[in-house]
């Protein structure tokens, strides 16, 4: 049986397709979507964070977990927190499309697409009790509280302890000990 000759067109086409897919080629049968892991992390953070009493209107008021302008991640989070409670409080996932609504959140996830607006956002959150979570390297250095970093296909997080204190959110030592980096 004759082996077919490699065609010249073929690598060119593949190159084009590869360029289109931009690194999406590797098989990932056993890999997990980064967003699912982040959503699970966020649920975990709730267990290790404590808000001041005035952040809630009543002792049973739910924890508002907001996702800024990212309805896909919102649905991930929604799925994780549904039917769960933390210290007697239920958790509601809230999609927000306007940073001004953020002051009323207990936890706010800001995806990397909003990187350009975070400084403005932090300004508007001044004096609130919002646990901000981002996903860029510089998020915690710019004043965010928890920033995801993805290294070697693993999701880790950094913590700005000083910022947490400013927002009057107590983070447990357990959380701080797992963090890749803690800004004091």
């Amino acid at each position: 049986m004759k082996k077919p000759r490699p065609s010249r067109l073929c690598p060119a086409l593949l190159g084009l397709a590869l360029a289109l897919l931009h690194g999406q080629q590797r098989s990932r049968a056993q890999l997990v979507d980064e967003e699912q892991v982040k959503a699970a992390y966020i649920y975990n953070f709730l267990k290790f964070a404590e808000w001041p009493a005035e952040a809630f209107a009543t002792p049973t008021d739910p924890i508002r977990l907001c996702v800024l302008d990212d309805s896909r991640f919102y649905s991930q989070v929604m799925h994780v927190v549904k039917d769960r409670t933390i210290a007697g409080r239920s958790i509601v996932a809230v999609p927000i499309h306007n940073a001004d609504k953020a002051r009323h959140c207990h936890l706010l996830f800001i995806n990397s697409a909003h990187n350009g607006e975070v400084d403005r956002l932090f300004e508007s959150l001044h004096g609130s009790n919002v646990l901000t979570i981002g996903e860029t390297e510089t998020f915690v250095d710019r004043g965010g509280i928890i920033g995801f970093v993805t290294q070697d296909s693993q999701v880790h997080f950094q913590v700005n302890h000083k910022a947490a204190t400013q927002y009057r959110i107590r983070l447990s030592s357990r959380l701080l000990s797992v963090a890749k980096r803690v800004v004091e």
Partner: protein
Amino acid sequence: MKLSCSTCLRSLTTVLIFILGTCDYCHSQQPLSDLSEATLEELGSIQVYSASKRIQPSGEAPSSVTVVSADDIQKQGYRTVADILRTVRSFYVTYDRIYSSLGVRGFARPGDFNTRILLLVNGHRLNDNIYDEAMIGTEFPVDIDLIQRIEIVRGPVSSLYGSNALFAAINIVTKEARDINGLDVSAVAASLHTYKARASYGRELKRFSFLVSGSFYGSTGQTQIFYPEFNRPETNSGIASHADDDQVGSAFGTISSHDLTLEAVWGTREKGIPTGAYGTIFNNPDTRTIDSHRYADLRYEHIFPGSLDVLARAFYDQYAYQGTYAYPSITDPTQTNLNVDCADGRWWGAEIQLARSMPGRNRVTVGGEFRDNIRQNQTNHDLHPPSLLLDDERHSIVSAFFLQDEIVLSNSVALNLGLRYDYYSAVKSSTDPRAALIWRPWSHTALKAIYGEAFRVPNVYERYYSIAPNVPNPTLTPEKIRSAEFVWEQSISTSFWLSLSTFHNTLDDLITQESLNDDSYIFENLQTVSSRGIEFEVKGRRSTGLEGTASYSFQDSEDRDSGQSLSNSPQHIAKLNLVQPLLRRGLFASLDAQYRGGMTTLTSRSVSPFALVNLTLLGRNLGKHLDISAGFYNLFDKDYYDPPSTAVSLHSIRQDGRTLQFKVTWKSGAR
């Protein structure tokens, strides 16, 4: 790297399967419930892949949504809302040198004042209560520099917004005190003797924040425009001379404290009409229109215990129009008679919206709206000889109730249901449903199936305006659209995204201006129009910083009764937007290219297809306080034409050639 063909073919197949969306590994996601039980350490050890994201607009929005930001506006040098909408997929704008008309998905009726588009500013309805007009050109009452972003929702959305939201709802979100943060001034000098100046000041104080802004725009317009249809000695050989001027004044103010925001808007525009519209004397500078809109809007937003979000609003609006039209006097044809056409609209109203996020799976929104049109008056009189021709006074009441439920059925399926009932004191009431099913079979892919209905009630202009050649028709009933749409959104990588959508629209009892035998016109619920189309859009970003969007849309609209293609309806529309940062993001070069296919006009003629290119260079944060931009519009000086409206007896309306704009913005606070 060497590749054998079998590897190559396999990879290609993988690629194709991936693109077509039937790959296996997408189903092998670990169940989420397991993950959330994992400890922090365990989570840190999981191998992940990056689901692509972050360059697409709201992935699970129950509609096809486009968002244009202040950043895009500045980089692309957009001058008006119409400029922005021209660049949006499947949208096209025509200009008859009075108003800019927006077409969406092949639908733009000649002489229509954008009545089938709902225009909102911070959620406040802008369509007036006489013509239902959405003003998008220089007549739009808010300065372009004050826009923080524009959210464009395609498809019928009457289930949330009521009348007029047939083809799209466009919400313009303005900047706030902290976006301006100090003094911010800009000056523009442009071709056609165009100048603009704006000053804004915003401060955030301890207890409240405020923003005030004012601007003035003046343009002499084209000093000479040649219209071959008027090429006769008695009409200045077809040359309209100094008759295209445009003056705009606008003011904007907002003050907020805690949950309350008070906003005041005022805008007025005066425009010379060079086209001899409505049979007026050609090349007469007295023929002009003035449109003014002002309103005050008080908004309250609060989140109550139990995660109950409340939005309440009360508002008062005034819209005034005055058109002055020069005709030969009936008593002495050598004299000019000025006919003055006026509209005076005033309305106030209130709305409330409650949204509750339930722990678990859904978010319910209920709301109600009330609008009292206290004045919907139209008058018309001649000055020589003085005579009152129309004095029509109307008022009406609108109230509505709506309900929306966003239900997350599973991790990959969401359902969005909406229903709204509108009561109109003057015409038949309407109930409009909407349903959207969003399925995300795997994280790169969203599939949406959307069905919606929307309506538009006939306005008082269509029902009661009786100046020849118009004949009134008080028996008009609301028109209705039914729309089905399928959307496929696919992320190819973290920096490449595409979307494909196909739609089918049916418009029943369309309110159409019909010609009667004796050269008069009447609005009637006549046409049934159906249109089908397909749209394709890609967005991409390269590591060099180059960003871009390209779109193509094809549609075919048909008048069901006559079986003919619809006029003012281009089959092909294509757009390309590119932004390249240069000099370490200190300079941006932006290209905006638009193609519009040919279309037939109301008079069964045609306007040719054209491609336009605009180029803008922006130097940002020069010396920390200064932005300077230079815009070249219609860079290649392309000769192109728009179809006429019913107002104009021309076959087609020539548009501007190449124009230039220089703009300088200075802000006290470096951002």
